[in-house]
């Protein structure tokens, strides 16, 4: 799969040469999470209650903010047309593109989450479930966001429309994601919910690229 390797290489090179696109959503995550204790007060009991929810919601919004850079420049410089006319399997090209986008936008959130979780006084037994749920959940968010982005890339200001389109799809991921941490804090099993999230991820990996291809065809025509 030469094309998968080449696409990953291209996307990561572009990402590291224009670091603003990576750092902005990450900074949003850092700032939003760290403002919470200042806003709601440093009561450990209360922070513990909301920690998982705050981290999940801000991670979700950060992923959504990062989506804009996924297809925008390719649409504007015509690379998207070349991509759609490629004789190579589009499914894998798109998957590689979304995957590299997650590596620079989703993965840093997962890595940072434990730091902010301890700042929000999340008990230790919630830490691993939080990271695990984000590790499975953020790729789903990226894949779903990419479908919305592919549909709206032809519009010049698509931010609000994108949010309206994909937020309903994000809700189940958010509910199950925070559910994993809640179960862990209440000493219930987390395997079932994680498995559900995993099933959603597999479904998204297998179907989202097809939806993205169809949406991109509409956007460029």
């Amino acid at each position, binding site marked *: 799969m030469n*094309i998968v390797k*080449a696409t990953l290489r291209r996307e990561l090179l572009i990402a590291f*040469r224009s670091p603003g696109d990576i750092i902005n959503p990450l900074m949003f995550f850092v700032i939003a999470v760290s403002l919470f204790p200042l806003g709601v007060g440093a009561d450990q009991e209360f922070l513990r209650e909301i920690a998982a929810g705050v981290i999940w919601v801000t991670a979700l919004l950060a992923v959504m903010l990062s989506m804009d850079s996924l297809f925008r420049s390719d649409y504007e410089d*015509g690379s998207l047309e*070349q991509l759609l006319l490629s004789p*190579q399997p589009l499914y894998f090209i798109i998957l590689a593109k979304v995957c590299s986008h997650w590596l620079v936008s989703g993965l840093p959130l997962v890595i940072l989450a434990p730091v902010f979780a301890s700042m929000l006084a999340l008990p230790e037994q919630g830490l691993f479930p939080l990271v695990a749920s984000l590790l499975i959940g953020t790729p789903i968010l990226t894949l779903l966001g990419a479908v919305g982005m592919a549909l709206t890339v032809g519009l010049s200001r698509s931010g609000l429309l994108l949010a309206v389109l994909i937020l309903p799809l994000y809700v189940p991921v958010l509910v199950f994601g925070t559910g994993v941490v809640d179960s862990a804090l209440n000493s219930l099993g987390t395997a079932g919910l994680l498995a559900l999230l995993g099933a959603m991820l597999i479904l998204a990996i297998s179907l989202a690229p097809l939806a993205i291809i169809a949406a991109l065809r509409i956007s460029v*025509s």
Partner: protein
Amino acid sequence: MMLTVKNLYCERDERVLFQNLDFSVAEGEVWQIQGSNGSGKTTLLRILCGLNDEFTGEIYWQGKEQSKTRQEFNHEVFYLGHAPAINKTLSPKENLSWFCASRGLRNNDQIKKVLNSFNLYGYEDLPCYLMSAGQQRRVSLARMLLSQAKLWIIDEPFTALDKQGVQELEALLSAHALAGGSIILTTHHSLQMDYSIRVVDLDAMAGLVAA
């Protein structure tokens, strides 16, 4: 016949861009799509390469319906639109090596040679945003040679090129046609090629949508 178009019809905003459009492109032929601004030249090229499906009529690729032979078609047809399809943060070499991979070609060693032949020696590793519009156009055109496609569908390839670049491109187009390849292009520049050029005139086909 490489590409056959039958009874093509397309309208936009209550205006007929073309109707009953029939033509066939054979090996070694150069076709120029003529028409004034807004007459639908770009639309026609995008329809021919499969980026636009707002038309009625039939398009055949080597005797088979185009939509049914997509992969083969994409392999043998190269399209270059108005947009250069060059990522400006990447160097010419990086842009072209992804292009080659996206066509399933492993000819990375040829990239340097092709760039040299487009007068881009010494610019291989410079980010494209540091280059002039004409140089970016050359990078974009370099893909034509790398694509190994039989049919080139090119939209205004002469934009931003200097005099020498125009001559070189004309020579390149002739060479491709002489070697048995075909070309469909639009341009407002008067071609100085010693090669017979067939013409589709879209202005003659325009009209209003019948009520």
